């Protein structure tokens, strides 16, 4: 029912409002979660139907677009204003159909899982309201046919991420982490914002289908403009998808509840950056520079994050670094022209990374710590969790026939065709992935229990948390092979690159086998270091290379750079305020007032001392004269006055007559 696809984001949105406003804040009330889960199930069914329609080619025309007018506004064209319409609507292409299924599925499973994980939390209903809100915004981002609406949803997922990272806001760490996440992504969004402005200036539209047509028209999009737009979008994507150098927020974001990490910071929201680059791929197609930048950013991130994961002991942080690294793989694939490969890895990664996070959540739920040094030997206590997580680890390491093998293979093949140095580095990152993932498995589940107290109390999680794990484990096994079968996925997302970007170099036939062999070697090495219940080798290595370890543990100092950036902006702000209050306000404005006051005082002084004195002087003079005269002449006798009058009149008369 692709015509009603707009309901898929709309319904969770309304549900989140309903939950927020009409449900009681009751820790044990099951209605809010059930409403959210039911809605999400409906959305999943709808998405599956759309996916089926898309894959069977039942929709014409394809890609499907439904557009309505959101509002109309005053726009300009060559100095003349006119009324332009801003559309809001849905654009379902192959990528969107896939993303719909991924988002609704993971969201559904996470919501079910949270029934167990978040049970008894005092803000239980608000949690579900936020989850629904997040899913709604994410789905809106996926289906929107208008870049402005996409951007709006992009910001809204950022806010829901902010709210959910800081869900336990009474603790200072989540409160800080949520702010950091929001600010870092916002920093990237500034680039995206400028890119949007540029797009409007170039195309006069935000409608994606229209942009794609104009971008393909020769002469509309100059390479320079395409590069600028592409880099701007890349900024946004780097923020949202936690790419170098903006990846610092994602490890901190692990302060949020673990199911949230699974949904937002592993499977869906962080993939939004990749998805956005894919959605605006027609712009990158016009700019080789931007393409190359995308590839290198992805590659750098994949390598840096993988190395940082090697030394982390917090189980969620290992997964966070792994997420960053895998997102780097996707971005690198996109940058090398591997549109299909990037999206394919996005899909499979969503399944096994969500599984890993939910499994980690299950472990944390059981042993009440994130620190792997206090775990060990949990496989006997938690067999289902161990089994599913092991499957996911095999998948992410890229072992045949698990899902990751197919997607990673596709990426490496594509990168090999693009640039063989990149290929080498990326393969190295893949080997590191296998190493640190198995390190995590060994430290957590294998060997002796290192903390007897915790180990003793450990228990398998309830089934409401386990069956989402099982379902995801199933998908982690089959999704790769199923989607890769007969080029099904490639056919579905189907993006035709312009001629210049097609790479002709084919990877050697033996490449997958070689890579798999190397991965196996890497796993063996990991076992050698961490899997034998004997860490002397690892410890001695750590002692030998402590500078490298400390650099890795400090995340290459990027956090320090971030902090100094914050401190620097604070300093600038303080200076600006000092300038404002001291220089502008007190010096100029109040100074102006003071000058006026001084002038007023001076003129007042002049007035008092000179002008007024003169006037008073004349007055005083006449007064004095009057007093003098009065004392000479008056005795109060009326006849005396009369005589003066008579004399005066006589005198005047004489005077007048004598002329």
């Amino acid at each position: 029912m692709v015509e009603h696809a707009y309901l898929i984001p709309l319904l969770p949105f309304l549900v989140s409002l309903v939950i927020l406003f009409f449900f009681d804040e009751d820790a044990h009330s099951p209605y809010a979660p059930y409403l959210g889960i039911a809605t999400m199930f409906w959305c999943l069914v709808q998405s599956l139907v759309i996916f089926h329609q898309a894959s069977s080619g039942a929709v014409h025309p394809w890609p499907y677009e439904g557009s309505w007018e959101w509002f109309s506004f005053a726009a300009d064209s060559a100095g003349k204003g006119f009324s332009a319409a801003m559309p809001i609507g849905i654009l379902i292409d192959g990528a969107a159909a896939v993303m719909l299924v991924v988002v609704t599925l993971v969201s559904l499973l996470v919501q079910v899982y949270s029934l167990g994980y978040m049970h008894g939390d005092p803000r239980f209903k608000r949690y579900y309201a936020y989850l629904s809100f997040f899913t709604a915004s994410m789905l809106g981002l996926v289906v929107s046919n208008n870049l402005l609406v996409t951007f709006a949803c992009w910001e809204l997922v950022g806010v829901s991420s902010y709210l959910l990272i800081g869900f336990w806001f009474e603790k200072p760490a989540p409160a800080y982490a949520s702010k950091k996440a929001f600010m870092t992504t916002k920093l990237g969004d500034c680039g995206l914002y400028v890119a949007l402005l540029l797009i409007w200036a170039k195309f006069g539209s935000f409608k994606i289908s229209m942009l794609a047509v104009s971008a393909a028209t020769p002469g509309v999009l100059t390479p320079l403009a395409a590069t600028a737009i592409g880099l701007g979008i890349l900024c946004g994507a780097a923020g949202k998808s936690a790419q170098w150098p903006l990846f610092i927020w994602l490890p901190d974001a692990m302060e949020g509840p673990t199911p949230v990490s699974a949904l937002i910071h592993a499977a869906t929201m962080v993939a939004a950056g990749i998805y956005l680059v894919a959605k605006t791929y027609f712009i990158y197609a016009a700019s080789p520079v931007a393409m190359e930048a995308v590839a290198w950013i992805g590659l750098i991130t994949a390598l840096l994050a993988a190395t940082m994961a090697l030394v982390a002991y917090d189980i969620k942080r290992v997964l966070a670094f792994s997420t960053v690294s895998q997102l780097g793989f996707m971005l690198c694939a996109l940058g090398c022209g591997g549109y299909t490969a990037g999206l394919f890895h996005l899909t499979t990664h969503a399944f096994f990374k969500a599984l890993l996070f939910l499994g980690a959540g299950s472990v944390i739920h059981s042993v009440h710590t994130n620190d792997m040094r206090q775990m060990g030997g949990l496989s006997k206590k938690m067999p289902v969790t161990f089994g599913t997580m092991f499957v996911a680890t095999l998948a992410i390491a890229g072992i045949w026939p698990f899902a990751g093998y197919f997607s990673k293979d596709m990426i490496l093949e594509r990168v090999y065709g693009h640039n063989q140095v990149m290929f080498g580095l990326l393969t190295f990152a893949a080997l590191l992935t296998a190493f640190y993932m198995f390190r995590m498995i060994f430290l957590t589940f294998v060997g002796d229990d290192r903390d007897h107290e915790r180990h003793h109390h450990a228990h398998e999680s309830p089934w409401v948390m386990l069956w989402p794990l099982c379902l995801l484990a199933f998908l982690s096994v089959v999704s790769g092979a199923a989607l890769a079968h007969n080029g099904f996925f490639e056919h579905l997302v189907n993006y035709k690159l312009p001629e210049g970007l097609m790479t002709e170099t084919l990877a050697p036939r033996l490449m997958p086998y070689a890579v798999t062999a190397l991965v196996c070697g890497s796993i063996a090495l990991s076992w050698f270091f961490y899997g034998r219940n004997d860490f002397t080798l690892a410890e001695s290595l750590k002692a030998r290379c402590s500078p490298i370890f400390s650099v890795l543990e400090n995340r290459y100092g990027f956090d320090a750079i971030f902090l100094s950036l914050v401190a620097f902006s604070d300093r600038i702000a303080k200076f600006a305020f000092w300038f404002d209050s001291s220089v502008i306000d007190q010096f100029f404005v109040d100074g102006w007032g003071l000058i006026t006051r001084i002038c007023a005082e001076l003129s007042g002084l002049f007035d008092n001392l000179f002008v007024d004195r003169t006037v008073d002087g004349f007055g005083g003079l006449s007064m004095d004269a009057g007093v003098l005269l009065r004392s000479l002449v008056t005795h109060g006798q009326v006849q005396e006055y009369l005589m003066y009058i008579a004399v005066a009149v006589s005198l005047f008369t004489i005077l007048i007559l004598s002329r």
Partner: protein
Amino acid sequence: MPILTLITFLPIAGALVILCLPKEAEKPIQITALVSAGLSFVLSLCVLYGFDRAQPLMQFMENADWIPSMHVHYALGVDGLSLPLVLLTTFVTVLALISSLGIKERIKEYFFWFLVLEAGMIGVFEALDLVLFYVFWEMTLVPMYFLIGIWGGPKKEFAAIKFFLYTLAGSVFMLLAILAVYFNSTPNTFDMLALMHQHVNWSARFQILVFLGFYFGFAIKIPAFPFHTWLPLAHVEAPTAVSVILAAVLLKMGVYGLMRISYGMLPLGFAWFIKPLIIIATINIVYGALCAMAQTDMKKMVAYSSVNHMGYCLLGIAGLTATGFQGAVMQMITHGIITGSLFLLVGVIYDRAHTRDISAFGGLAVRVPTYAGLMFLACFASLGLPGLAGFISEFFCFLGAFQAWKVYAAVSVLGVLATAAFFLRMMEKVFLGPFNNKWAGLTDMNARELASIVPLTVMTVALGVYPKWALDIMKETLIYMINTPR
């Protein structure tokens, strides 16, 4: 029916009634104030209902001789530029009056001045005659002086006199400019609509001089850098409801004047000033946000954020594009609504805690969830979150300016980042983190406070999700303004 006159003078009538009531009759005074402001709001809604959105020119015109010997007319009218502002004024005034019901001292004078202030503000947006415009403009000044000077904070007298003198200094130049256009128009006229066609006879030099005269008056009101320093002081000292009016409406008079008078009458002067204007806009945005970042007082922070947000208005105007104009007008409306609610919300916490120091709080979200929710919404709206009112207007301002000034607009985007930074920090320090037990006795919002804030919150969401109805009111007029041959 002279509906615009009624809208303007109903508050005056209410003020006169209040003047006749004994000062002990607090309830009747409050009711009179609310009823007259409310009626004015209802009538402005009637105007909105009868307003023809497809018509770009003045509507509901009224014209009568006032001082015939000087060709001064009593002329009122609204178009797509002024109607939204009139609506904003009447709407926000009613809510500010509701929040003023908590005022305890000298109630009679308070409501009297408040209603006079409202009449002045409405009049500024409706006047079509420069003398009338000037009279209304000055009419807002005196009530504001008393409202800040009597019901304000510790430094109220200084703040009031500074506000008064600063603004008056600006309007003196404006008066000069008004006289200049009067004596240089043929035939001599104060009619704003007629003056829009006079610029063909005016030299660039004359237009620049007159523009500067008007600009002084408007820039101080907006407030544009570097004439903005009265604003934080006045806001910090003013009582809550007065801050609301000051931020929501009074600042808009400056931008309105810039668009109606400076742009409409003096195209050459405006064109000459366009480069300084974009620089000032950028400074307002980035510098205002930075100053806000350095604040520890919530109210002062919001005040500086107003400097930042008015910068967006200037940015939109400086683009000289229909989109930018639309953004500027929309930004005036959304800033009025959002900042109005922010000031009201800050007032709520100040009434309870008697402090506005950001670091004095902590973890309040546990204790006052409704308040925290409304505050979060207002802050997010103010930092331009899509789906809330601030985003669309801000985006249009950028979009309009970017077509002409790519670098400045791109630099201004940093202001958006800084805005997010200080709002998020405030939210973290006040509402998140461990609960500060000092505030264990804090109560959540009461009915009066909710009644004054929730309508603004609703509008914030409504304008963000469905901006169409607001955009439609102003669209045609702004397109016409851009397309008028100049």
